[in-house]
């Protein structure tokens, strides 16, 4: 159905009115204890008692969105401080494996974008089992990713093709992933790096499944700019250094466009890539109750409003995005399975290094 978008919708150029509606998620107030469920209140009290603090490693979004979530949590549960550390997925994973090795776990809630990390950490017994009350209230597609309850999907985002509207006319923009191979985009495509970004890892894996690795061999001939985070591609577009974000993170692109940068999106005909990103509580967390409360929060309506305000997917059915904002349920989606990701991402990183040299 993405192919049926009217030109103005396909470009997702944002009208001011649509934006005004999105401010809603930002105002979160302290919940009166009465508004909290009993379970929540018990966690809240226990969290305060254990030090009133937690540390969140997240690769789920850009820093601005991550900070907005942290602040909203602090506002909802006054007295509990959140240390928000936003990095790429592989960097977050590197840090957590270091902490595990040093037997000094600093992280309480771990939010990577590489599903393989969860399979691995769960197998090693590094996660604490916890099924949030809110886990049953999310959209069906996000339920029960781990039947054992060690991790839960807490965010999702789309990858499409982004472009700089100052340099590329909508009619000329790539309409499908394979259009990226057109020689006219030589030196003009920005990509993230699967060795850093969990989003890019899954994206590369998805396209490998779709077109074979040959696709990337050909893409390399167009001499793309390889950055690190998937969000790096947005920097390249804003600078005018590249015209096309080959792996375009929808949330960050639209957030940046909202700030006035000349950006737009194109939904590839073969399908946009949907990234499902879970969170888990570390078994040796020093703030287990704050961590549980945070898991509840990440799956709350409040958090979903913030995700939407920053153009990511909602977890909860109660809220929906403003019209014109791309949502997974309205698009053709391609997505690998958990097994494919666990096995495939490390392979893709290796292949990537051989093909692109870095």
């Amino acid at each position: 159905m993405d192919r049926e978008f009217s030109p103005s919708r396909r470009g997702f150029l944002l009208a001011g009115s649509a934006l005004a509606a999105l401010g809603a998620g930002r105002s979160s107030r302290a919940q009166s204890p009465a508004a909290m469920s009993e379970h929540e209140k018990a966690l809240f009290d226990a969290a305060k008692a254990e030090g009133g603090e937690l540390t969140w490693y997240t690769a789920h979004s850009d820093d601005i969105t991550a900070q907005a979530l942290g602040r909203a949590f602090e506002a909802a549960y006054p007295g509990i401080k959140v240390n928000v550390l936003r990095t790429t997925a592989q960097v977050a994973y590197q840090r957590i494996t270091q902490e595990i090795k040093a037997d000094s776990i600093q992280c309480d809630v771990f939010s990577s974008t590489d599903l393989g990390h969860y399979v691995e950490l769960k197998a090693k017994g590094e996660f604490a089992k916890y099924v949030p009350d809110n886990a049953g209230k999310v959209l069906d597609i996000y339920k029960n990713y781990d039947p054992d309850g060690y991790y839960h999907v807490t965010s999702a985002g789309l990858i499409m093709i982004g472009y700089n509207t100052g340099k590329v006319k909508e009619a000329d923009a790539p309409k499908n992933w394979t259009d990226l191979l057109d020689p006219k985009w030589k030196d003009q495509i920005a990509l993230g790096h699967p060795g850093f970004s969990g989003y890019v890892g899954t994206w590369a894996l998805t396209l490998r499944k779709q077109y074979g690795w040959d696709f990337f061999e050909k893409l390399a001939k167009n001499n793309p700019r390889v950055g690190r985070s998937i969000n790096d591609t947005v920097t390249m577009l804003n600078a005018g250094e590249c015209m096309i974000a080959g792996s375009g993170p929808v949330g960050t692109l639209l957030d940046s466009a909202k700030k006035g940068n000349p950006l737009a999106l194109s939904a590839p005909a073969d399908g946009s890539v949907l990234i499902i990103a879970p969170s888990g509580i570390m078994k040796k967390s020093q703030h287990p109750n704050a961590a549980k409360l945070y898991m509840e929060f990440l799956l709350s309506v409040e958090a979903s409003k913030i995700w939407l305000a920053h153009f990511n997917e909602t977890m909860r059915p109660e809220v929906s995005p403003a019209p014109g904002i791309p949502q997974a349920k309205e698009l053709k989606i391609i997505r690998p399975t958990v097994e494919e990701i666990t096995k495939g991402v490390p392979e893709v990183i290796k292949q990537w290094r051989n093909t692109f040299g870095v």
Partner: protein
Amino acid sequence: MSVALTRDHQAGGVRRISRFDPSLLLWLALIAVLAFLVLNPLLRLILSSFQEADTGRLTLANYLAAYGNVRHLEALANSLELGAGVAILATIFGVPLAWAISRTDMPAKGFVRLMAFAAFITPPYLGAVGWILLAGPNSGWLNKLWMGLTGSAHGVFNVYSMTGLILVVAVTSFPYTFLFTNAALDLVSSEMEDAARVLGAGTLRMTFRITLPMVAPAILGGAIISFLEAISLFGAPALIALPARFNVVSTQLWQFFEYPVRVEEAAAFAMPLLLITLLMFWVQRAILGRKGYATVTGKGGERRMIPLGGWRWVMLGYSLLVCALSVFLPMFVLIQAAFAKAWGRGISLQNLTLGNFHYLLFEQTQAKQTILNTFLYAGITAFAVIFLALSIAYVVSRKLVPWSDALAFLCMAPFVIPGIVLAIGFYAAYTAAPFALYGSATILILAFVTRFLPIAYTSSASGLKSINPEMEEAVRILGGSRLTAIRKVLVPLIKKSIAGAWILVFIPATRELSSAIFLVGPHTRVISVMLFDLSEEGNFEVLSALGVILLVATLVIAAIGFKVIGRDFMLRRT
């Protein structure tokens, strides 16, 4: 105490203890500290390069894995090219400026010095971001200007290249050659130059045959530091080399630390860098050999400026060019971005905002703590490392213990342990029990102390080298102990060097990235790591704002420091 002992000594006291110079205990303590900071992590590094990951059995497999890949070898070659290029370019930038300021009547010296200082406090990764905006092949301001002027369809500069990386690193590291050379030139009196003049030498001949050779240790020291710094940098290569699609040793090492972490392979891959240090030392010694370079003798000497005539404007032009490359241009684009709503929109009133600063100071959960941490750790590091370096430099220069050259090597070795590897060495050595320092400020500060030991040591050693031991010997002949000689004679003489060394450490410590990146915990983040995390994503406005905060705060603290010691940033009396 010392006086009594010395009297015993003079009296030919029978008690053996009296022959024992008490300062020896201090030296032994220092050696223990050095063993803790450098030797232990270093030995662990070397040992693990020969060990199997899980069993700890000896093996050469790590070397086979580390060097059995063409890309890895290319990375090594790239690092050497980068280091050599930076050392040469930094010398070309730094030495003429130092000479012009120290020895000639070039105008606007104060301004040029200020700009060299500004270049010094600019972290390479921040400079790299600026240069990406200036010389991005499609979008760089310079390229746009070129295309506008010539009507050409393509720009001429490409920051995403080895040349680009060399330039970016050189413009932030030329202050080393500049500062070292300038400090040394300031100590050289005009007597020798006068002699050359009397014998009929022109300015050029005199400069190249007399003046510059006299400060050769400083120039070489600066070039070596630029070289070593360049090959161990991580941030700027991550920003430039990755998009340019080549690896250097540091970015390659990063890959060894990805999951599954292969510390052992990384250790094997880091070995050539240690060999390079050894080689550098050997080269330095071979070149400088047995020549004496004591230029401060306790005797008077006069320094006069060389009149350059019309050439002084040429020198000024060159100086301003260097300043433009290192400061004006990158700073201009960074400041523009820091105050922009969206930097892609260029300069206009509608695009102006303080929102990025507001975000950092009021919305970001980490930024304030991060900023405080940065300056606190840098300050503590600077004090600790100066004390250590000076003590060791003294031991070495006065040959108080056997194998003192080995101490010198240990002090210099950290420079070629790329920060990432140093961090892993520290991680391996001190995060587990009994130290259990993971995520603490202590481990960061210790790593910083180790990392900046070479800078502190180099400047301490060159400061000491210029002091003829005859002045201390005078104290000792008159019955003073070694500690008295140090306190009463040496320290006052080299106060300037000490203060300078403090600044030389403090500033890079505020911007240190590569050793911090694996050692920070959630509560001990520093600005460099936060900038690095921000640089991964499309959040350039906030990154620039944080960079501006870092630069302004560093400037203020350094200015206060200079005020307190009564010197300007080149350590001249004000």
